[in-house]
């Protein structure tokens, strides 16, 4: 990894020279990323998954929400033409269910990532930039949240509100956000504090820039990269967490489809009917892996120091 990064930095350097003017952080990173096979592979995978989440009907003509497509008497049938993954324990088409399962996983992963980045990022910026008092309070609060084991905490929140009429998908997002935002907070706060000690901030201040201008023009752009990196990596983690909650029965609920739910439904008969468990598990692993790979690549490109 380190030699690759070195090569990348050299390449970046050459690039700058060729273009004759210094490239910005983002252009540089993009140039760097395009050449990394890991990045390209993960982007292709994620592209397919996003397509699957947005238009699952492109992949299968069977609507898994139509109970008429389920044939209980054919339960656990192994793959046949038209049913490439076979059928699950209820006799429903496994491929269609797996494809439609992508949507909830990806929607939950993205919404949670967005929510944690926005909440954690804003609070981090405020804590670092504002009074010491606000910083102390917010930092202690995040420490409290850090002390809660994530899955256990999410389990508690999700099970507490599960009887309410709240949509089960939003509930999962809510539970994971509550426990996930401190990470973004810490990263943002550290990055802002580092940026604040830079000369250009002092210069801006000396030139009479107000706090709003300093925050938006100088601090935020310089502190954004690490938050984006950590969020991308966490996205995979949130998808896995959603599957865990659904598996435990407090996440997405039937008749909604989720990979975690499918795994839970298939586990008791795994010994003699492994496919209904294997396929959603495979999709889940590949998705999580793709997002983590993407996060890794973005991190290397944006912030070589983090390696």
């Amino acid at each position, binding site marked *: 990894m380190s030699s690759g990064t070195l090569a990348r930095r050299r390449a970046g350097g050459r690039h700058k020279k060729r273009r004759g003017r210094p490239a910005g952080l983002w252009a540089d990173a993009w140039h760097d990323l395009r050449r990394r096979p890991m990045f390209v592979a993960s982007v292709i995978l994620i592209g397919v998954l996003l397509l699957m989440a947005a238009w699952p009907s492109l992949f299968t003509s069977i609507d898994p929400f139509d*109970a008429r497509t389920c044939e*209980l008497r054919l339960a656990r049938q192994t793959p046949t033409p038209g049913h490439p993954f076979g059928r699950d*324990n*209820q*006799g*429903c088409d496994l491929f269609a269910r797996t494809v439609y399962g992508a949507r909830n996983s990806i929607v939950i992963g993205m919404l949670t990532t967005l929510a944690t980045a926005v909440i954690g990022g804003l609070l981090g910026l405020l804590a670092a930039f504002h009074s010491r008092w606000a910083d102390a309070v917010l930092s202690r609060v995040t420490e409290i949240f850090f002390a809660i084991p994530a899955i256990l905490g999410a389990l508690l929140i999700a099970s507490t509100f599960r009887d309410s009429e709240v949509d089960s998908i939003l509930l999962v997002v809510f539970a994971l956000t509550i426990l996930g935002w401190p990470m973004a907070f810490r990263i943002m706060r550290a990055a802002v504090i580092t940026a604040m000690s830079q000369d250009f901030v002092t210069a801006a201040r000396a030139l009479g820039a107000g706090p709003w201008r300093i925050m938006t023009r100088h601090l935020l752009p310089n502190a954004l990269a690490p938050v984006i990196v950590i969020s991308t990596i966490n996205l995979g983690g949130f998808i896995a967490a959603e599957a865990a909650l659904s598996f435990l029965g407090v996440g997405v609920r*039937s008749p909604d489809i989720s990979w975690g739910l499918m795994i839970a*439904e298939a586990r008791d*008969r795994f*010994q003699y009917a492994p496919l209904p468990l294997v396929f959603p598990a495979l999709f889940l692993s590949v998705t999580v892996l793709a997002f983590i790979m993407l996060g890794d690549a973005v991190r290397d490109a944006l912030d070589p120091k983090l390696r």
Partner: protein
Amino acid sequence: MRVTKGAWLVAGTALLALTVAACGSGAPAGGGEGGDTPVRMEIGEPKNQLVPGLTTEAEGAEVLGALFEPLVKYTKDRQAEPNVAESVASDDNKTWTIKLNQGWTWHDGEPLTAQNYVDAWNWAAYKPNAASAAHFFQMVEGFEDVNPSEEGAQPAAKTMKGLEAVDDLTIRVRLTRPNSQFRLMLGYTAFYPLPAKAFDSNGKITQKYMQQPIGMGLFKMDKPYRKGTDQVIDLSVYEGFKGDKPKNWKQLEFRIYSGQSAAETAYNDLQAENIDVHDSIPSSQLISAQTALGDRYHDDPTSLISYIGFPITANPAFAKPEVRKAISMAIDRKTIAEQVFSGARSPADDFISPAVDGYRPGACTEACSYDPAKAKELYAQAGGPPRIDLGYNADGGHKEWMEAVANNLRANLGIQVQLKPEEKFGVILTALEKHEYKGAFRIAWLYDYPSMENYLTPMFGKAAAKGGSNYSGWTNDQFDELINKGNEARTPAQAIKFYQQADDLLLKDMPYVPVFFHRINWGHSTRIRNVELNMLDQVVWAKVEKADAA
């Protein structure tokens, strides 16, 4: 009623029990002295303290069955044969004389007397004690005095005038009207006696007794059981017991399993020989259990029936019989029995279990057969609701078959079905009792005593609609009248005729939809042999032998 939370739920009256049952025996191989290590059985946590009048579900009944010995036992052909009682006799089915055998003693050595029975039954019937078995005594003269049916009314007496200990070994029971089923009932948990020591000076059962009951059965309790805290109940053979005793072992341990996958966990323990008897092998493991356990796997008929119930009085959407019939006809019982239960259940075709006399194969032919086209038509004509909720308890292994039923209804009726899993069955029952539950629900019934009547009165009788286990709220005066006629009939054959007429009213109206007749799937470890279940699906401990002590 025994309500089962597990594989079966029963609601109602006296009988059944909950879920997963438990049994276990197990004797570790302990060299030549097999008698020292306990035989271990899996049970679910008893719902109440271990007192006969408080126990109307299967888990607690399994433990009490080891601590107490019933007045009568049931033979294979479902007759009551005298056990602790020497005889149970009546000329008119109205005044009954129960004579006790001589020489029975309590675990503390005190003799068992007729008064012990009278005390226990009066305690269970007395309204302030809020015993769940109280309704068993409502046919006794004077029940209304100790347990007035009016809400808030105070009892006028503490004892029923129809109950009398004539001498030390003779109990006389006068019923308000003739009841030919009375002798059969006496084998149930609710009719166990209580020793004088159980009561304090106010006639309440002491806390000490509740934790460590003194019984008169094969086993005595070695140490107090603190419900909710203790995960095992330890028993040992009472040497003064008058009946048969196990040949080569003395210790019995009930191990309590709880939580979502209790039955699965216990099944793993059975395979690892950490327990010796498991009487509720989960349906998903039935195929592997046959190979893994071989001839230690058993598949026996049981009296349990599962139904889909409707809150008829609480939700007008289910008021029309045609709606309920259409739902019944949309359920593909046969395929679910095969695919989900691997044949361990069979499609139900009557409200009555094949386990009792009076069952008629095919009684529910039209409404219980799978006919999607007709179901859809009927449902549309009757204006059935476009969306229904379907409730079940998540701890009893019901998810898969409830999903299958929901898929049937969605596909065949074209309606939306939302499954509503609840943590415990009690949540649904409590909401039903308050008439707050609006969705259809699963429910199951296990008999308390082997009589057809036990499938009718507790679930559909008018009296049971108030505080009993008539959860649909369906009532019918003609139905009650037929049951009474059956109870008063002189011969069992006559009684069954009336009961069947009452059953016909159910089949016409379908307050519940019969879904499956169950089988009990149980197994035991290699450490014991000669394991069998009695007619109440409890292990016959006296016959169990440890294999390693031979």
